[in-house]
């Protein structure tokens, strides 16, 4: 009758149902499960939203040259109390052309609305022009809200190899360009009569600070707030000569949701991408190592003769290997990708589970009901599958969850030293970069805190899940609370 069939299936599931209901009662376990689910969903999102090509760009420093380096996240303002500038890109200036007695002039102006408490970390100006014959003169000037005008840069365009028409383009890093610096010195000299050594001049101070004789090398300044203007002026000798491009990147001091590292890389991308990598490595390695460990442990416990002895020796051998040094050594030679790292890690991880699986098997093997099954005519295989495996399986699930944090830590250690996957960003690698770049002593807290918190969250979610599973699986006699 269908009723009996349904009943049997329900019976078979009764143990499962009991297990699930017990698990639901564990608040910690449920929390862990929820967190893990969130991370999995995040990983899916990340892989879709930032496809692999984006990730490869992560390693190319040139991609990030427009970003301010070591910039905290934009929300850091909340903690520091000061309003820190964000990066702005200025373009779209309008040309004003006129000519006087055969000399052709063109002006372009970029407006910068600025109300932050600190000057930007750098200003990069791109100027381009085209000309037919004689090189035009180009002058860049800076107009502050207070009205002061500072001449920043002056040059004659250089001819390109091909032409006419010749083209000229220049990318000017205002803060570090030596000529700009000496122009600043000249400005101060003419306005206040002070001689300031060029090497000690902070261009940012002069451009943004409230004017005073000592502003050039002051340790901190009051920023003039208002609208600044960057003006380029070209003096050319042919009506067709013109400015072809004029834009500026005003690099802020904060960037993005998670800040930048020393190369200006948006840490958000790195950290987000670390999620699927960490989950992948942690979960796959754990499953693999528990699988191997279970198999070896059960077989070695069941076939106690020479097979068992040999397997036990092998287990002991791997158990006693110092994991991290050997792993570092091998990684140093192989520079493993994620897919090589996973079996490598599990190679060191399986002995622990094998030992426990073996002792469980040894114990179950002695149970009377196993002997009863043998008396019924059961073969070794039957006993293994029907009586021993069900005892070890629930324990193995608990173990899979509990082992994940360890593997994530180990992989993070390897990446920290720069020996991990060469392309994919992992949290360990980011932290390793932080350490090497002196983030801890330089105070770049976001670079240290955020990737570490991610590691912590993933680790603790698996720990909670694993602990909950373990409590359900371990016989109640062994637990008091």
């Amino acid at each position: 009758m269908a009723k009996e069939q349904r009943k049997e299936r329900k019976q078979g599931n009764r143990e499962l149902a009991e297990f699930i209901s017990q698990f639901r009662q564990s608040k910690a376990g449920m929390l862990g499960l929820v967190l893990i689910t969130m991370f999995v969903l995040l990983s899916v999102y990340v892989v879709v939203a930032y496809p692999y090509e984006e990730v490869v760009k992560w390693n190319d420093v040139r991609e990030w040259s427009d970003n301010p380096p070591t910039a905290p996240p934009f929300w850091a303002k909340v903690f520091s109390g000061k309003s820190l500038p964000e990066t702005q890109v200025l373009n779209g200036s309008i040309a004003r052309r006129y000519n006087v007695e055969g000399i052709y002039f063109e002006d372009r102006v970029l407006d910068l609305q600025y109300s932050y408490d600190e000057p930007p970390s750098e200003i990069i100006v791109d100027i381009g022009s085209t000309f037919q014959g004689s090189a035009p003169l180009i002058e860049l000037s800076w107009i502050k809200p207070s009205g002061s005008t500072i001449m920043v840069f002056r040059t004659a365009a250089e001819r390109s190899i091909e032409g006419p028409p010749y083209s000229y383009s220049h990318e000017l890093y205002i803060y570090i360009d030596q000529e700009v610096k000496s122009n600043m010195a000249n400005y101060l000299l003419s306005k206040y009569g002070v001689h300031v050594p060029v090497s000690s001049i902070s261009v940012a101070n002069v451009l943004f600070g409230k004017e005073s004789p000592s502003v050039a090398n002051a340790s901190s300044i009051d920023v003039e707030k208002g609208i600044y203007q960057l003006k380029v002026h070209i003096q050319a000798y042919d009506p067709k000569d013109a400015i072809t491009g004029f834009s500026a990147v005003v690099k802020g001091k904060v960037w993005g949701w998670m800040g930048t590292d020393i190369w200006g890389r948006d840490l958000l991308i790195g950290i987000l991408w670390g999620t699927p990598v960490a989950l992948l490595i942690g979960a796959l390695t754990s499953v693999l190592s528990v699988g191997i460990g279970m198999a070896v442990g059960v077989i070695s416990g069941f076939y106690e003769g020479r097979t068992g002895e040999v397997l036990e020796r092998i287990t002991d051998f791997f158990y006693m290997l110092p994991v991290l040094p050997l792993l570092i050594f091998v990684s140093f030679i192989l520079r493993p990708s994620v897919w090589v790292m996973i079996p490598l890690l599990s190679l060191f991880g399986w002995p622990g589970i094998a030992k426990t699986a073996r002792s469980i098997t040894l114990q179950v093997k002695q149970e009377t009901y196993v002997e009863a099954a043998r008396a019924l005519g059961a073969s070794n295989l039957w006993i293994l599958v029907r009586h021993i495996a069900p005892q070890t399986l629930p324990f193995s699930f608990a173990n899979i969850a509990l082992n994940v944090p360890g593997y994530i830590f180990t992989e993070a250690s390897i990446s920290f030293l720069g020996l991990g996957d060469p392309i994919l960003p992992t949290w360990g690698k980011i932290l390793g970069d932080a350490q090497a770049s002196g983030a801890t002593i330089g105070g770049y807290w976001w670079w240290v805190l955020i990737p570490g918190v991610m590691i912590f969250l993933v680790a603790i979610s698996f720990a909670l899940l694993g602990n909950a599973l373990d409590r359900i699986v371990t016989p109640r006699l062994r637990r008091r609370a």
Partner: protein
Amino acid sequence: MSFLGYLAKRTVVLTATLILVLLATIMVAGGFGIVDRVAESAIRQEVNMMMRANPNLARLPEAERLKVMETLMEEQRKAIGLDKPFIERVPKYLFQALSWDFGKALYLRSASGSSLVRDLIAEVLPRTILLFTTGALISAIVGIALGLLMARRPLGLFDKIMTAFAVVSNSMPLWWVGMLLILVLGFTLKVLPPGGYVSVPAPTEPVAYVLDVLHHMILPLIAVVLVSFGGWAYTVRSLLLDTFQQDFILVARAKGLSENDVMYKHALRATAPPIITLLLLSIVGSMGGAIISEVVFNWAGMGRLFADAVAFQDVPVIIAETYVFSFLYVAVFLVLEVLYGLLDPRVRTGASVQG
């Protein structure tokens, strides 16, 4: 079999393991040609220098010069023993390593200027032991004390808070906590040195020197203890609760012993073997994980030497360090087995599982 017999057997097995590990290390390094590649380039450099130093050789025509170079390099190879294929050299390397002769480092030098790898390691090993053994001991002591408190009132508020703390602290890598501590204490608050083993320049007077080292030890120790004591407390608490369920505790209580006596005289004694085991295992484990932590704290110990060797690709040091780590691991396991044999009489008689 008797205890001595068991011990002998285990020693043999463990020594065999050690040799196998060493062999594997050498084979892997050699098999990938690293050893040879590195040595070859070293030879080339030497020969180049020799040739440049000798003005006669510089004047020779191209073909002649190459021939002389080749001859010189062959001589050098023979001197180091590179003329034979790698397989044949393995026993020599193995024997050297086992007799603690690790040869010379390629780039790294010890503080005294020696390039002998043995000296390098001898210099750094005590520092690692100092830091991590102290850390493990402090964690254990603090953890045991707290675990006792937790076991007194299971499921009480203190127990729950400590358990939560244990889970949290176990989920943080030690080296990351170290980085955070340096940020907070070293950079922001500036109360402790952000790293290093001694100040630069180091004080010369012995007492001041020792104090300086201790001063530098504080930050790493805080990190080690913070991360470990929670786990210790929880483990001790669980062990104690398990022991409490045993009949002999019931007897002690029925006899009218005070709770203190029950706790300290009976329960704690019963949990001593697993605690000692855990202590040894944690020392061993921490040394393995010391590598990254020492880099973070800039602590000039075994771990940092290893990281430096990796960074500089100083292969002899890498091999030697891997071997020393393995040796320490195996040695501790052997001590553990001896202790277990002493503490647990069942092991002594070699009683098999068949009851």
